[in-house]
């Protein structure tokens, strides 16, 4: 393989005065260099992190000052509430506009799969569109309980993007209804 041809030079002797430079072949064996090159490539390929993590923007509502005049509250019939519980449980409900003795409230225990959460959101979008004329008016209240985990929140936020929900917020679960659900389902509500 190695071809450092050192031939030539010998042969003709035409006098001692002219010392000719030896004619060397310019071919250098590159095998070792290629080996080295590929070794380094392998190293850098393995060391590179190709999959750059993505980010998800979260906007929290600013903390309100108590003395300021608040905006009028959103009609509950435009909302949907999601409560994220421990052990990947998810409770969805729609609060009625006004609560009285005859009010009936259904709470669905759904999951994070497309069949659960996505169906619920889409159903709510249709209902809001029927009632108010625009599905973008839907306001989703996301209420994580202390036992839920980051994955649950990311899943729910993701579902908002997938279904193109324009308005949603992460809120504290401090509604009386929330307390009731937390109590009924054996979830902790307060952060200790």
């Amino acid at each position, binding site marked *: 393989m190695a071809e450092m041809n050192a031939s030539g030079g010998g042969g003709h002797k035409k006098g001692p005065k002219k010392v000719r430079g030896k004619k060397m072949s310019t071919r250098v064996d*590159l095998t070792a260099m*290629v080996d080295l*090159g590929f070794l380094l490539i392998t190293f850098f390929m393995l060391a590179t992190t190709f999959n750059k993590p*993505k980010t998800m923007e*979260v906007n929290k509502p600013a903390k309100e000052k108590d003395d300021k005049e608040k905006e009028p509250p959103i009609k509950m019939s435009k909302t949907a509430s999601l409560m994220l519980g421990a052990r990947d449980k998810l409770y969805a409900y729609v609060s009625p506009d006004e609560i009285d003795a005859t009010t009936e409230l259904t709470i669905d225990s759904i999951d994070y799969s*497309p069949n659960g959460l996505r169906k619920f959101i889409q159903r709510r979008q249709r209902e809001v569109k029927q009632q108010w004329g625009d599905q973008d008016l839907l306001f989703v209240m996301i209420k994580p309980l*202390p036992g839920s*985990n*980051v994955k649950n929140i990311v899943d729910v936020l993701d579902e908002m993007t997938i279904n193109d929900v324009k308005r949603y917020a992460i809120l504290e679960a401090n509604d009386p209804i929330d307390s009731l659900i937390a109590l009924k389902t054996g979830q902790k509500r307060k952060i200790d």
Partner: protein
Amino acid sequence: MPKVKIPRKSTAIDMTAMCDVAFLLLTFFILTTKFRPQEAVQIDIPASTAQIPIPDRDIMMFQIAPDGRLFFNLDDQPTRLKLLERLSTAYSMPFTAEQKDAFRTLENWGMDIRSLPDFLSKDPVTRATIQQPGLTIDTTGGQHQVEDLILFSRQENNNLRIAIKGDKTTEYRYFDRLIQALQNRKVNKFNLITSARAAKE
């Protein structure tokens, strides 16, 4: 029968082109490589369909381990030094030049700020083996160490974006503690770090 003579060919191949390709690829990988920083804790991030790539610069990152320990990382070194100076005056702790230098290259850390000088004077190998207890976060009273970190860092670098890297299984209460601290410092917008995933239909 006359034998067909197969001419003997040299086994040497011209490697020049191959060498060129190898080094071209090598250059590419060298230039694109960004080494994974040394993690103080292993974090398994959740997947989402979010498409925004994480910015390269001006990132202040909080990591939340599954057990709720909180780690802090500021990406650019000059800001880190300025932050250390601010901490030094706020907590009246003098730092030596070596400690400052150690802090400059410190990627992730999570401990009570008052134990920083002690930690920084250890050599890097010992430092890597120490189990860090996580930042001291206290939102009900006392010294708001995390809030101080947020405040000082943002004062030193106004363009900082805040990223939160939480493990899949980190419970919301730990997450909420951090968000409370952020909101107390008037940060209402932050980024959650997730890995890419295609939307399931």
